[in-house]
């Protein structure tokens, strides 16, 4: 078991190989569909100008993403009425929806990892090699268990995106993940897809 604390150094990322189990510690941010689209449209491709609190949120998250980790997660949160937030259930969501955006986001912020489920495609794998960064797989559906690793909710941005889509700033302890795409071009998802395709072709022949 490898322990890593955010911000993570490039050297530590290069040492990771697919199949490694890792416990993550420190600060991470959640971000999924709405957040990725917002980052790309407003600050990376600049298709729209920052409005409202856009710039303020960007300035707040930018230092946390330098060497940091983005978690594809739309949590169940208690304490919404009091503001004393607590993560009740917080497993990963399907990552492939962010495939058009992820590589650019990782490069822009120099983020070192993305956590999700189901793996990602060729564009993200290429970004993993270049940035460098890795894809960490959490166990889909294991939401109550994973929520135990979230020690504290430090804050939340973009609540107008809704609870699942907001940017939650988390302090985590021993957050369990498996590296399934590394910075050397290896992807468990690509391998399994190739081997299952061969079996499938025989079964339908």
């Amino acid at each position, binding site marked *: 078991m490898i322990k890593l604390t955010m911000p993570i150094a490039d050297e530590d990322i290069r040492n990771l190989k697919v*199949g490694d*189990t890792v416990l993550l510690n420190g600060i991470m941010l959640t971000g999924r569909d*709405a957040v990725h689209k917002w980052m790309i449209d407003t600050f990376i491709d600049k298709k729209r100008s920052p409005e409202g609190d856009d710039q303020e949120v960007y300035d707040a998250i930018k230092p946390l993403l330098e060497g940091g980790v983005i978690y594809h*997660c*739309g*949590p*169940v*949160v*208690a304490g919404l009425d009091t503001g004393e937030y607590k993560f*009740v*259930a*917080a*497993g990963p*969501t*399907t990552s*492939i929806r962010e495939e058009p955006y992820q590589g650019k986001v990782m490069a822009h912020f120099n983020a070192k990892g993305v956590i999700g*489920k*189901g*793996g990602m495609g060729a564009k993200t794998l290429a970004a993993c090699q270049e940035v460098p960064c890795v894809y960490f*797989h959490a*166990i*889909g*559906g*294991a*939401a*109550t*268990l*994973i*929520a*135990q690793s979230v020690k504290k909710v430090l804050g939340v941005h973009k609540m107008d*995106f*809704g*609870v*699942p*889509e907001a940017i939650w700033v988390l302090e985590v302890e021993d957050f*369990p993940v*498996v590296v*399934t795409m590394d910075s050397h071009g290896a992807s*468990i*998802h690509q*391998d*399994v*897809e190739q*081997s*299952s*395709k061969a*079996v*499938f072709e025989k*079964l*339908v022949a």
Partner: protein
Amino acid sequence: MENLTEHFLELVRLTATDLPPDVESALRKAHTTEEDGSAAKGALETILKNVEMAREKSTPICQDTGTPLFYVHYPASMSTIALRKQIRDAVAMATEKAYLRPNAVDSITGKNTGDNLGDEHYPTIHFEESEGDELVVELMLKGGGCENVGAQYKLPNTELGAGRDLDGVRKVVLDAVNTAQGKGCSPGILGVAIGGDRGSSFLASKEALLKQLDEKNEDAALAEFEETVFEQANELGIGPMGFGGETTVLGVKAKSTHRLPASFFVSVSYMCWAYRRRKMVVKNGEVVYS
């Protein structure tokens, strides 16, 4: 009629936090078949630990508490207007208590209603009047990850060499599993509908999922079909979470429905391992959950 809101709330809590025994037992069996030290076995270990913890803490098994799908079989003496209101109230209460995540998003504005109450289709409530004086309500919570990998095919399918027969159905269903890989949170359960129009076919594919995993299909041809697809889907080796392994699906449930001569649809509803479905029966003022 009696106000059943509190009981509907309990049905939602139970469904979101406590995995049904047949599903848990299938997961335990899968755990024993995976190789020691493999990522597949590790994933199932985590899954089983999570199931126990969610039950103990009464918190959601999965944070995607899904689309609430209610199947209500009501006696003639009950009003569906009253039942709908009580169910909707219970869903909002369950959201406030964090048994459910606020999931109802306006498709045009992108705004989340915050209480899981959307238009007349959200939550989805199917009403069916039944004989006798029992009220039977089944609830299925279906997450978005697995719903997204569902698929509908039209036979014949030239690309897959799938004709208008059960062997053709087998081929397209295997294609759906192979395309899904681990993205629907495998090991999954397949609800397969054969026939219908596009709408009724998808509806039937979800109804097929209401059956118990160990319940044998009454139709001999479909029973054999389920068994074959179960074995072959597992041969694909996609494994839990798509990590590779012995267990790609936990079960296959099929249902056939009449079709037009011109159409032959096959619909696959993929259910994640977190197969949350529960039932409540109300009779003579007594409520039993299972």
